[in-house]
């Protein structure tokens, strides 16, 4: 039987699935590298918390607010980033990732360094006494994730998805075929940000608070790693990245215990593993295991048909 820790991790996996999807959308489908999704998650999280505390909206409405607020942020970022690409975009979003969450200190309504409470409350009694709060988190998160993924799949298969893929392949050719690449970029940013915002709200639900420290630079790195692991060009492998990210701290814990290492090694082992995994994947499996497998299968099919 599954114990509570696993349930909690299940909720975390759902969060990562949505967050990684936001990166796959941006990087894989439209060719931009943005490190700002961690910051956009923060925007969504804070929006949800403020909606909950100040306007007393129900949780579902708060999630909507999160998506919209983050999407707005994404649109702004997209407009600003329209003239940037490659390392300039990466560097700008890097600065954003470091700077934006700490902006919460400026406004007391955002709770400062301490943050705001985001308490989704307890599951309704109709679900029984054994239905713990973590189970409640899991179900909300899973539901939100499934809905989001279904929506996303449909969008990617639509005209917009094709436009993005065209722009990524060759921007000049795309422009020549009449695609407004600038507008399509902004759209990609907006949608990706909306996803990130939802993930941020879900994350705060599981932690119970929203604070700048929940969205460090390391989070953006993790998301990037998760996306590369999943295969940046396709949504199918997103579970791989999400499960890996949640599994790494556990694995690191076991390894650290077996080796009986010092405090500093134990704390930094997860970070090391994430970074190492990122490099190895980019070098040897740059399109992700799913694409790799497909390519190999396609080659085999081609060879058979000869």
């Amino acid at each position: 039987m599954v114990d509570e820790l696993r349930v909690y991790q299940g909720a975390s996996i759902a969060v990562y699935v949505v967050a990684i999807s936001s990166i796959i959308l941006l990087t894989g489908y439209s060719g931009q590298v943005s490190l700002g999704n961690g910051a956009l998650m923060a925007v969504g999280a804070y929006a949800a918390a403020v909606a909950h505390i100040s306007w007393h909206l129900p949780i579902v409405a708060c999630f909507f607010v999160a998506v919209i607020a983050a999407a707005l942020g994404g649109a702004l970022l997209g407009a600003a980033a329209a003239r940037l690409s490659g390392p300039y975009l990466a560097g700008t979003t890097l600065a954003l990732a470091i700077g934006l969450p700490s902006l919460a200190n400026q406004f007391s309504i955002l709770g400062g360094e301490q943050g705001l409470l985001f308490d989704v409350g307890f599951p309704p009694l109709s679900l029984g006494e054994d239905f713990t709060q973590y189970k409640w988190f899991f179900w909300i998160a899973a539901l939100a994730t499934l809905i989001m993924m279904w929506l996303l799949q449909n969008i990617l298969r639509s005209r917009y998805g094709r436009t993005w893929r065209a722009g990524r392949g060759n921007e000049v050719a795309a422009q020549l075929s009449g695609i407004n690449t600038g507008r399509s970029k902004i759209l990609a940013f907006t949608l990706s940000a909306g996803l990130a915002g939802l993930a941020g709200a879900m994350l705060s639900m599981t932690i119970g608070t929203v604070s700048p420290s929940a969205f460090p630079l390391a989070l953006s790195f993790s998301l990037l790693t998760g996306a590369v692991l999943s295969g940046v060009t396709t949504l199918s492998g997103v579970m791989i990245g999400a499960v890996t990210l949640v599994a790494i701290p556990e694995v690191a814990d076991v390894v650290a215990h077996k080796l009986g290492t010092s405090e500093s090694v134990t704390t930094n082992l997860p970070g090391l593993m994430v970074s190492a995994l990122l490099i190895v994947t980019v070098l040897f499996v740059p399109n992700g295991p799913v694409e790799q497998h497909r390519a190999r299968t396609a080659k085999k099919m081609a060879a058979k048909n000869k």
Partner: protein
Amino acid sequence: MIQLLNTLLIGITSGGIYALMAISMVLVWRSTRVINFAQAGMALLSTYFGYEAMVNFDSFWIALPVAMAGGALFAAIIEVVFMRLLVKHSSSGPIASVAPIIATLGLLGIIRAVVSMIWGGQDVRITGPLSNDGFSVGGETLVFSPLKLLILVSVIVLMLMLSILFQKTNIGLALRASAYAPEIARLSGVKVDLVRTMGWALAGAAGAVAGMFQTVNGNGTLSPDSIEFSLLLVSGFIAAVIGGLESLVGAVIGGLLLGILISFVLMYVSSALFFIAPFIILLAVLFIRPQGIIGAKAGRRA
């Protein structure tokens, strides 16, 4: 009045250090057309080499060259082992243009984690070679000291030396040729790969100086989690962009400008903007003058 002067002085000193980081990023860019996000991590590691030298020889003037040598060596190794592997494996496919970025970010993460593992738990301290007590002028103490003066002088000296190297020597010519026209350079007999490695090595040395000075300019503690390190990371890149990424003089100007701007914002607007100010400045620069102060071409889309 004194507050204004002090704000300016604080800004110039930190700006000088950002300039050093920017110089190292420009060096990498000019020799291999890559923006190395791991530069600050390498600077951090080099500073720890300097720390070990301090522990063994108790002299900053020995520690600094050791840090520079260590930084240069480490950077060269990374270029040979890591970057060439990267180019070989990921020059095709949808992720090709962003692969170097992702890879250097991953490298940054690894360096940081390893440094934390080896030295993390300890209290690591480097004492500066000169006093950091402020100069007294007419009864007021300025936020400027012999140490800070040394930092500024070093930045300018380094910039001049590197500029002379690039513009006036054969090696400098080879460096520039290998970056802009590698095929022609090869045909002329230049060992392009070796020259590129040299570019990285120089950058590594410059980064080491930045790391050492950043440490002694603060309270002397060195730690991978410190804000000083995050500042190096972000500000190096921003200063390089402000300066235009193409020239060393631009890097220095970019660094000083950034330092001064941030200092004024923190003192006169709000200290809570500590983390977001660099980002806003970067956006402003990219909007107003995207090719940077000195940059000539629109090289941003590279």
